[in-house]
C-alpha cells in the first residue's frame, strides 16, 4: 500500500465528503420555492403531433403548469450543429423525444401528471438505420438540415447526412490494394451503447428577469453558458453556471441536454425548477454512443508490410446532430483509425446519418472503440492471410521513432513497439487456468491517441487561510480526480505540500473561458495554465517566501500552436479467453493493459483511469447493447443494459511503459481514453485464436460464438447501425 504522504499519495480532497454521503450533486440541491419537472416523451419514432390535452394533468394537485413547444423559445440549440428543439414542435423525430413538460410542487406529482398528458399523433414513415437513411427514397428526417446554424452539410450533400469526413485518396488506396499480395475486405458492426454514468442527468435552474443561474450535470460550464445564452436570447454574462461535482461523465455529460428546457420552465413559472431524469430516460432518450457499420480493406506485401488501408464507416447519428461538439459533427476516433501504424496509403471515410432514433453523442474516446474493433480485427485477419502471427505482423507495421507518425503526422516519439512487447510479455507470465473441454487463446490489439492541443484554460491563485494557496478552476470534478491533479501539480510547481493547496471550482463569471472537460485535455491543459500561474505567483513573491504571493491568474496558450510535434500515447492490450464449445460462453481469463506514460501526477487516479477503462472496454466487448428494435432502445434499465459488476470483471493486469515524453514542462500524457479502446478487438482476436471463429459483430456474446462455431448466423439478426 502506497504511503498517504507526499505528492500523489495524498488523499483526494473530496474523499471523505464522498464516502460519508456529504458530497452534494445536482439532484441533492434545493432552493426556496423550488418546483419539480417531468417530461412527456414521444412513444413513436416519427409522427405529426395533432393535439395535446393537458386537462387531466392540470387537475393533479400541486401542478403549476403543462408546457409545450408553443410556450418555449423556438430557437434550436446544440454544441456545434444547432438542430435540437427545446420541445418538439409539430412533429417528433424519435421515440423518447420531449413533447411537453409538467411542473409541480413535488417530483411525484410532476411524474403522475406527465403520465396524464394526452398527446395525439399521426404516425409517419420512419427511417431507422443509417444505411436506409442515406438512400434517395428515404423519408427526410429534417427538411433542410443544412439550414441549421453550425450545420456540417450542404444542400448538395445526399439525403439525411449529418456529417461527412474524408481523409486521403480512395483512388490511391484502391490502386495500392490492387498491388498488395494479401488483402482482406470485411465489414464489422458495433451496437448502440450508453456511457453508463450512474448519476442521472439533472438540472436545477433559477431564472430571474433577464438572467438565469444553472446547476447541471454538465462538464463544460463555459460552453454551456454560450449554448444557453444563444438559445434563450440572453447575454452570456446573464447566464451563471454554478459549480457542482458530477456523478460520472464518460462523454455523456458534455451536452446541453435538457438544460435549456429546465431554464425555460423556471422562466415560465417564475420559480426555481429541478429536472432529474429517471435512469430509463437516460438510457433511451439522451445521447448514447453511435452504432457503426465499418468496412475495412487492408493490404500488405509478401513480407507483411502494410501498403494500404481503406476504412469506410457509416454511423447512425439519430434524430439530431446537436450533441456532438466538432464542427464536422464527426467523431475523431473514426478519422484516427489505425493511427498506430505507418501505412503509405490510407483512405478514411466517415458518414453519419440522421435517422428517426435517439440522437447520438460522445462516449469516451468517441469513435475509437468502434474503429479500433474493426481495424484491429481486420489486421488479425490479414496477418492470418499473410501467414504471420498477429504480434510480429503488428511489430512490422507500427509507426517508429524517427519515422513519420501514423497517417504521416509528426510526433515527438512513437513507443508502440515497446508498449505492445510489454503487454505480450506480461500476459505470457500468467498461465491460464482453462476449464476442461474449453478452448483457449490470446489476442492483442493496439491503439494510439494524440494528446489534444492545449487551448484556452484558465486558473486563478489566491492566498488561502494560513499557509495555504487557493486555486480556482473552471472545471467540475467529474470524478477522474482532476481537482487532485490540479492540487498535486500546483504543489509541485510552488514547492509546497499538496495539503497546502485548496482547489475550488468557480462559477462561470469568475474566469475568462474554458473548453471544459473532455478530449483527454484536462491534465495537459491544466498543467499548462498552472505552470504560468505559478510562475506569475513566484514572480510576485520575489525573494520572499513563496506563500507571500498576492494572487495570480494563469491562462494556457489559447491557440496551442507552439510548433512542437504532437505527443502520442500508445496502449496495447492482450486478452486471454476460454471458450466453451458447447454453449459458446466466453470467459476472459486475463486482460493485460500496457500504457505508454509520461510523468504521473496522481498514481492511484492514473491507475483507475486504466482499470476503469479496461472494465468499460470489457463491457463494450462482451456485454453492452442497447438493443434497437423498430427505433426503440429495448434495454431501458440497468438490468437489461448490463454494465460490468464486480462479479463480471476479468483479472486486470497493467504494465506502465515509463519514460515517455509528455506535454509541457510538466511532462504529462493523457490516460483517460486509452484502456477502454482496444479491449474489444483483443477479445475478438482471442476468440478467433481459440476457436477459429471470427466474430465481427459486437458484443461477443455466447449466442454469436455458439452459432459461429456451427458455421451459421445467429437466429435473430440485429438492426444496425
Amino acid at each position, binding site marked *: 500500500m502506497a504511503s498517504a504522504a507526499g505528492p500523489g499519495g495524498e488523499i483526494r480532497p473530496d474523499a471523505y465528503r464522498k*464516502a460519508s454521503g456529504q458530497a452534494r450533486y445536482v439532484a441533492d440541491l434545493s432552493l426556496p420555492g423550488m418546483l419539480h419537472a417531468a417530461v412527456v416523451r414521444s412513444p413513436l419514432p416519427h409522427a405529426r403531433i395533432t393535439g395535446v390535452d393537458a386537462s387531466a394533468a392540470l387537475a393533479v394537485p400541486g401542478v403549476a403548469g403543462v408546457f409545450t413547444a408553443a410556450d418555449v423559445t423556438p430557437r434550436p440549440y446544440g454544441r456545434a450543429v444547432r438542430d435540437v428543439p427545446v420541445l418538439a414542435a409539430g412533429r417528433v423525430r424519435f421515440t423518447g423525444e420531449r413533447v411537453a413538460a409538467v411542473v409541480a410542487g413535488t417530483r411525484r406529482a410532476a411524474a403522475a401528471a406527465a403520465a396524464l398528458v394526452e398527446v395525439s399523433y399521426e404516425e409517419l414513415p420512419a427511417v431507422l438505420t443509417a444505411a436506409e437513411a442515406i438512400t434517395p427514397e428515404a423519408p427526410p428526417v429534417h427538411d433542410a438540415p443544412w439550414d441549421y446554424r453550425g450545420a456540417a452539410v450542404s444542400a448538395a450533400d445526399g439525403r439525411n447526412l449529418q456529417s461527412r469526413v474524408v481523409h486521403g485518396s480512395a483512388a490511391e488506396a484502391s490502386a495500392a490494394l490492387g498491388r498488395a499480395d494479401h488483402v482482406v475486405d470485411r465489414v464489422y458492426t458495433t451496437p448502440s451503447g450508453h456511457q453508463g454514468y450512474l448519476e442521472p442527468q439533472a438540472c436545477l435552474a433559477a431564472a430571474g428577469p433577464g438572467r438565469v443561474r444553472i446547476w447541471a450535470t454538465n462538464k463544460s460550464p463555459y460552453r454551456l453558458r454560450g449554448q444557453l445564452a444563444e438559445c434563450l436570447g440572453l447575454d452570456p454574462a446573464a447566464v451563471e453556471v454554478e459549480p457542482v461535482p458530477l456523478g460520472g461523465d464518460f462523454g455523456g455529460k458534455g451536452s446541453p441536454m435538457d438544460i435549456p428546457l429546465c431554464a425555460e420552465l423556471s422562466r415560465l413559472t417564475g420559480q426555481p425548477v429541478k429536472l432529474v431524469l429517471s435512469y430509463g430516460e437516460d438510457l433511451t432518450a439522451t445521447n448514447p454512443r453511435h452504432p457503426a457499420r465499418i468496412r475495412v480493406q487492408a493490404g500488405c506485401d509478401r513480407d507483411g508490410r502494410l501498403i494500404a488501408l481503406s476504412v469506410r464507416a457509416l454511423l447512425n447519428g439519430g434524430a439530431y446532430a446537436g450533441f456532438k461538439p466538432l464542427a464536422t459533427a464527426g467523431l475523431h476516433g473514426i478519422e484516427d483509425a489505425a493511427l498506430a501504424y505507418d501505412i503509405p496509403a490510407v483512405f478514411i471515410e466517415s458518414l453519419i446519418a440522421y435517422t428517426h432514433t435517439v440522437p447520438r453523442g460522445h462516449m469516451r474516446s468517441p469513435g475509437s472503440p468502434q474503429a479500433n474493433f474493426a481495424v484491429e480485427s481486420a489486421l488479425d485477419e490479414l496477418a492470418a492471410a499473410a501467414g504471420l502471427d498477429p504480434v510480429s505482423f503488428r511489430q512490422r507495421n507500427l509507426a517508429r521513432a524517427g519515422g513519420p507518425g501514423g497517417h504521416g503526422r509528426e510526433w515527438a516519439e512513437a513507443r508502440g513497439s515497446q508498449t505492445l512487447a510489454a503487454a505480450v510479455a506480461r500476459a505470457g507470465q500468467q498461465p491460464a487456468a482453462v476449464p476442461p473441454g474449453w478452448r483457449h487463446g490470446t489476442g492483442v490489439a493496439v491503439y494510439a491517441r494524440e494528446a489534444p492541443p492545449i487551448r484556452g484554460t484558465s486558473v486563478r491563485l489566491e492566498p488561502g487561510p494560513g499557509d495555504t494557496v487557493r486555486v480556482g478552476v473552471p472545471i467540475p470534478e467529474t470524478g477522474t480526480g482532476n481537482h487532485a491533479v490540479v492540487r498535486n501539480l500546483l504543489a509541485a510547481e510552488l514547492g509546497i505540500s499538496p495539503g497546502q493547496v485548496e482547489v475550488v471550482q468557480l462559477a462561470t463569471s469568475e474566469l475568462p473561458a474554458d473548453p471544459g472537460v473532455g478530449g483527454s485535455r484536462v491534465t495537459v491543459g491544466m498543467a499548462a495554465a498552472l505552470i504560468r500561474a505559478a510562475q506569475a505567483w513566484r514572480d510576485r513573491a520575489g525573494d520572499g517566501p513563496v506563500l507571500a504571493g498576492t494572487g495570480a491568474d494563469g491562462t494556457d496558450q489559447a491557440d496551442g500552436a507552439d510548433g512542437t510535434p504532437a505527443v502520442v500515447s500508445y496502449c496495447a492490450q492482450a486478452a486471454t479467453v476460454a471458450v466453451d464449445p458447447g454453449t459458446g460462453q466466453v470467459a476472459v481469463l486475463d486482460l493485460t493493459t500496457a500504457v505508454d506514460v509520461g510523468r504521473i501526477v496522481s498514481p492511484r487516479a492514473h491507475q483507475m483511469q486504466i482499470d476503469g477503462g479496461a472494465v468499460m472496454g470489457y463491457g463494450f466487448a462482451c456485454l453492452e447493447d442497447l438493443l434497437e428494435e423498430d427505433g426503440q432502445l429495448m434495454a431501458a434499465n440497468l438490468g437489461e443494459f448490463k454494465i460490468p459488476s464486480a462479479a463480471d470483471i476479468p483479472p486486470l493486469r497493467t504494465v506502465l511503459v515509463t519514460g515517455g515524453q509528455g506535454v509541457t514542462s510538466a511532462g504529462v500524457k493523457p490516460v483517460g481514453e486509452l484502456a477502454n479502446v482496444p479491449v474489444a478487438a483483443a477479445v475478438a482476436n482471442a476468440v478467433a485464436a481459440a476457436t477459429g471463429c471470427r466474430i465481427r459483430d459486437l458484443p461477443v456474446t455466447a449466442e454469436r460464438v455458439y452459432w459461429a462455431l456451427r458455421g451459421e448466423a445467429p437466429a435473430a439478426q440485429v438492426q444496425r447501425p
Partner: protein
Amino acid sequence: MKLSFTLNGEPVAADVAPDELLVEVIRGLGLTGTKQGCGVGVCGLCTVLVGDRPVSSCLYLAACAEGEQVWTAEGLARAEPALIRAFAEQEGMQCGICTPGQVVTAAALAREHPAATDAELRHHQAGTLCRCTGYQTIFAAVRAYLDSR
C-alpha cells in the same frame, strides 16, 4: 400513514404515503447521501442497512421500515469512522456517486461475514455498480476495513 423508525441511531417519525419508498423518505429528511440511480434495484446506489441487511431503498416501501434500525452512509461515518477512512485512504472512489452505496454494502459485509475471503468480498460488493474505478480500489478499501476490525 404514520411511520416510526430509527435512522442512524435517532428516532424518526414521518407521515408517509402507503406507496412511498424508503429512499424518498430518507432523502426528504435532507439525508441526500443515499443516491437514486437506476430506480429498479440493480445499481446499488440507494443501498441502506435495515437492521443488518443491505436493501435497495428504491424498491423498499418506507412502511416496511416501521420499528427498524436504518443506517445510511452519513450515520456510518459517525458510528464507524474506520470504514470511511478505508475508502478515503485506498481512494475507493472516483465520481463518488456510488460510494455511499459501496460503503453501506461493505458495512453489511462486516456484520454478516467479517472473515470474508477476497472472492467473497468481490461477490458481496457486486450488487453495487461502479462505472469509474474498475473496482480494484473499492476491493482494497473493503479489505482494509475488514482487516482493521
